[in-house]
């Protein structure tokens, strides 16, 4: 049904509207972006055009590629509203004023086709009020689609339908938002703040109140209501700085005016004089002069924090937050700590979880919707009900009761049972009627976590596992920290190949983790270096090369299915796959030079082959070599799958999945599509320029060094890379085989890994996560 939306109109080119338009364009669908005609200036489309121009300069980028930006057509609502007739979905993202929205809908009704969905991105206004006065036909086409900021990166979409909304129209929008735009749709009720912002605002308010009341420092508050709770480490004060302190009174006013009189929010909605003063003085957070935290430029960019009692800034002090298991996700241990930490944790967590539990069924039908909303809308690691399971529902109910607080109905229903359980290998959730039901995946969604619950791995060791994902397809999963790659992974690949060849049809390389793989296990490598186990290191390099080539030439199709970071060795395994089915958010690159090394697991030859066989490349021995040299020596990483395609990390016929949840399913289908008549690729042969080409590359690198863009040691590393890419001693008229190139790669790697300056780079990366520029 997603095909039935072929053009979208977004009205309102503010941050949200423009960002939503960009995400439609990222899906490859043309989008019309309209805004008002500016009061001054001759260009009537200036507002929408300005929004697109601004997005092209914004980081993180709203667009996944420059070609996506070209799909956005700009205009204004005075001259171009009739173009809405060409669109299948109109998203309204104008200012949060009922009269303005209603006025726009009246005009839209006159120009839109029947069946064209109209949705509002409102975060506060009830649907019933929005469609007041509109025709029945308009009401049938109307719904609320509430995106989160920034729309490209936040996966949550809350959809609210009204009593008159046509189910087909809603399904059409939902399907498009899910498959094309990559959003996870959570169905919310037509209640104020919907799900995520209602709970999120409550949580923030509790956090602010408790810190003021208990006299906690901002740093300590964030050290408690941050990582230990499985929420982003910015904590609450850091989050408010990020979204804008001035937004808080607006949210508060909106919720207090719309929430039912008996909602617990009214009791906690307070304004703090210090916060009012900060807003008045322009201290609105990161976008303003500073917030609860600031960088004092007059004192050499000193990090400062506001003292909640005095209102004065002072140097930021690293707070000693919880330790032990309370710092590692044991929520019961956290709230039971004696003293301010435990008290603060309980005030925030206990209150928030009780509030979330009280919203079933008024704001959402089930616990999964609430948990998904908080995980995807606020980046919490676990949703409120998953957190309650950690505390124990009965324990929570008892503690609330002992403090004289109301116990939400669903907690009573749960009793001493968890909200989630595994039954016969299937995850189930508890409903308000007291029964458990299977958590069903939508068509086209395959979860490796589900596969793992249901069975045992075909192969498994400390760093990788092989799973049967059905229909004759297997999945190779990395399991180490950050999915780091090591000898165990290579060993498992070598074992997997004959197994898959004899009993299965295809292999998918996939992991459920946020990041596909950050590359080789550097910690292990540095250990080997420290004991001078050079032959072990060389074995690891050669073993990786052999394992990856084994995958490449295996008698069955291998499909890589990366999402997030795919760096170094993680990039190299993908380069050896027959095809890649990538998540749209793919950050892929050969980054070895950043740690003073060169790609050692066949990445050089694979990328070289891609560029050499690109018909767009000029002829001759240098263009492909120079392109790969530029990409690898600068450790360039794609900022999207679309960009990875431009960099030829992905081939032209590799496919992109927008919705992370659909990646494994799509990859499996891709693998199955390659099974019939499968033949492995033939090994490439290279015509390389040898020393002359290396001289040319070193001239280019020298230019960068003179400009101050490359260090002295960069020259050494890039020369090692150049030696590999130009074929070492090769001559123009000779043919260099894949194996010869692998040998050059190994030699260059082994030369560099022994250098103290490379070792310093690796150690620095391990300690700080940042490259050392030595």
């Amino acid at each position, binding site marked *: 049904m997603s095909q039935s939306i072929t053009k979208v109109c977004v009205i309102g080119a503010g941050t949200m509207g423009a960002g939503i338009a960009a995400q439609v364009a990222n899906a490859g669908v043309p989008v019309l972006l309209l805004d008002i005609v500016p009061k001054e200036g001759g260009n009537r489309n200036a507002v929408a055009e300005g929004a697109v121009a601004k997005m092209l300069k914004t980081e993180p980028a709203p667009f996944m590629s420059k070609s996506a930006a070209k799909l956005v057509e700009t205009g204004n609502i005075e001259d171009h509203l009739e173009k809405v007739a060409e669109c299948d979905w109109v998203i309204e993202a104008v200012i949060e004023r009922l009269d303005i929205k209603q006025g726009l809908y009246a005009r839209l009704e006159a120009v839109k086709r029947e069946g064209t969905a109209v949705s509002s991105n409102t975060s506060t206004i009830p649907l019933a009020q929005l469609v007041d006065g509109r025709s029945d036909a308009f009401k049938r086409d109307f719904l609320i689609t509430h995106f989160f900021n920034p729309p490209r990166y936040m996966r949550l979409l809350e959809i609210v339908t009204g009593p008159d909304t046509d189910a087909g129209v809603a399904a059409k929008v939902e399907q498009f938002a899910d498959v094309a735009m990559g959003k996870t749709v959570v169905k919310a009720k037509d209640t104020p703040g919907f799900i995520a912002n209602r709970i999120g605002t409550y949580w923030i308010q509790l956090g602010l109140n408790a810190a003021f009341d208990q006299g906690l420092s901002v740093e300590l508050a964030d050290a408690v209501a941050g990582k230990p709770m499985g929420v982003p480490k910015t904590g609450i004060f850091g989050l408010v700085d990020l979204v804008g302190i001035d937004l808080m009174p607006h949210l508060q006013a909106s919720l207090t005016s719309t929430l039912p009189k008996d909602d617990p929010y009214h009791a906690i909605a307070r304004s703090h004089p210090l916060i009012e003063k900060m807003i008045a003085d322009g201290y609105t957070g990161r976008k303003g002069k500073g917030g609860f935290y600031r960088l004092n430029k007059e004192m050499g960019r000193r990090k400062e924090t506001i003292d909640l009692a005095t209102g004065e800034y002072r140097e930021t002090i690293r707070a000693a937050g919880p330790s032990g298991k309370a710092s590692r996700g044991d929520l019961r241990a956290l709230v039971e700590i004696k003293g301010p930490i435990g008290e603060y944790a309980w005030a925030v967590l206990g209150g928030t979880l009780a509030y979330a539990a009280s919203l079933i069924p008024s704001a959402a039908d089930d616990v999964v919707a609430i948990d998904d909303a908080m995980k995807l809308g606020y980046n919490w690691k676990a949703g409120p009900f998953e957190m309650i399971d950690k505390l124990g529902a009965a324990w929570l109910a008892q503690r609330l009761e002992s403090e004289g607080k109301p116990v939400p109905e669903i907690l009573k229903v749960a009793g001493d049972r968890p909200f989630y359980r595994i039954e016969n290998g299937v995850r189930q959730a508890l409903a308000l009627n007291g029964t458990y039901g299977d958590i069903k995946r939508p068509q086209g969604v395959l979860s490796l976590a589900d596969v793992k619950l249901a069975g045992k791995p075909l192969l498994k060791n400390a760093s990788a596992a092989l799973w049967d994902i059905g229909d004759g397809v297997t999945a190779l999963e990395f399991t180490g920290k950050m999915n780091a790659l090591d000898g165990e992974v290579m060993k498992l690949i070598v074992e997997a190949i004959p197994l898959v060849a004899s009993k299965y049809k295809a292999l998918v390389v996939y992991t459920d983790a946020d990041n596909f793989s950050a590359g080789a296990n550097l910690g292990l490598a540095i250990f080997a270096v420290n004991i001078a186990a050079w032959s072990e290191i060389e074995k690891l390099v050669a073993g990786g090369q052999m394992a990856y080539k084994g995958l490449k030439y295996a008698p069955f199709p291998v499909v890589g299915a990366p999402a997030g970071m795919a760096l170094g060795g993680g990039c190299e395994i993908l380069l050896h796959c027959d095809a890649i089915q990538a998540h749209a958010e793919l950050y892929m690159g050969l980054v070895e030079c950043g740690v003073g090394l060169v790609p050692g697991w066949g990445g050089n030859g694979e990328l070289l082959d891609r560029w050499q066989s690109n018909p767009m490349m000029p002829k001759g021995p*240098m263009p492909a070599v120079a392109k790969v040299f530029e990409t690898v020596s600068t450790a360039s990483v794609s900022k999207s799958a679309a960009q990875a395609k431009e960099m030829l990390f992905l081939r032209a016929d590799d496919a992109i999945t927008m919705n992370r949840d659909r990646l494994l399913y799509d990859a499996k289908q891709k693998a199955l599509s390659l099974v019939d008549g499968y033949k492995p690729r033939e090994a490439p042969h290279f015509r390389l*320029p040898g020393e002359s*080409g290396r001289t040319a590359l070193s001239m280019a690198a020298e230019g960068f060094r003179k*400009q101050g863009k490359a260090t002295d040691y960069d020259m050494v590393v890039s020369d090692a890379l150049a030696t590999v890419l130009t074929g070492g001693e090769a001559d123009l008229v000779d043919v260099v085989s894949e194996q010869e190139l692998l040998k050059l790669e190994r030699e260059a790697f082994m030369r560099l890994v022994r250098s103290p300056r490379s070792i310093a780079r690796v150690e620095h990366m391990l300690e700080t996560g940042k490259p050392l520029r030595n």
Partner: protein
Amino acid sequence: MQSVVIAGYARSPFHLANKGALAHVRPDDLAAQVIRGLISKTGVEPADIEDVVIGCSFPEGEQGFNVARLIALLADLPISVAGMTVNRFCGSSMSAIHYAMGQIAIGAGEVFVCGGVESMSRIPMGGYNPLPNPALMKKGNAYVSMGETAENVATKYQIGRAEQEAMAVESQHKAAAARDAGKLADEIVTIETKAGPVSEDGTIRPETTAEALAGLKPAFDAAGSVTAGTSSPLTDGASAVLVTTEEYARAHGLPILARIKSVAISGCAPETMGLGPILSSQKALERAGISAGDLDVVELNEAFASQALACIKDLGLDAAKVNIDGGAIAIGHPLGATGARIVGKAASLLKREGGKYALASQCIGGGQGIATVLEAVE
């Protein structure tokens, strides 16, 4: 010796490489349009043309296949008209003129179209397959980068950043004033592109100020003094002049701009290639029997402000007579096309401004200089 004259000059508008209005135009198409413009402007009989000699610094890709012959065909010249591509890097199209003069001297023709073209958008500097000789690379500075030579000259002549920037500002202002006064219009041939006709330079930045230039980062050496603002920009463009015997020009009523009095070419150290004009100009002046003080017009290519300033100093040139309508820092430097531009420009200026002698000279990557002395024709 036969008297040889410049009997017509035309060029395309010059535009910044990659982002300018000519980035999407093939260099062969660009040059062909300029030659058609030159022929229509001068009224020369195409069948009388002996050869089309085209200078190009990186004659490969769309500038490959002996592009001069292809340009002649694209320009719809009679099939009897030949074509030859000449490469002497930045001196290419001035060399094309010198070649024609030599051919005339040995009685091998009397009408030549001499021009140059470079699309720095479409063929990268250095070409697609740079393969320097490793042994020569180790031996010296044969492959030194142009920016580095500009720094070397600045150091050697102690030309500070402010002095370079003052020259760049003046070049921009002179070019803008000339354009605004319509003084560039008659040399420019309107180029038809897919996006419409292009008839003005896109390189000139009249808003340039010394303050703005002072804020730029060094372009080639983090500790150096040469910036993008004091260098000629990467440029797309083509140029051409009509070179004939004076006798032919007079017999056919062609608009004679100037007579070629003398020419010279010389080598110098690659690492200070910007000083190339000094020796070559001295040789040409000596061959013409005149001194720098006799010059009324000078076109000295501004590859970089530092080298142009050094040449002005060493040659004892009167700065007021140098690049009257602005130089390459403002107008641009499409490598192979610059020589014909500055010879055509010097000849035109001699006619426009009056006076007896003009000099056109430029430096050449790898360490050379080239010069042409022109004389007014009564």
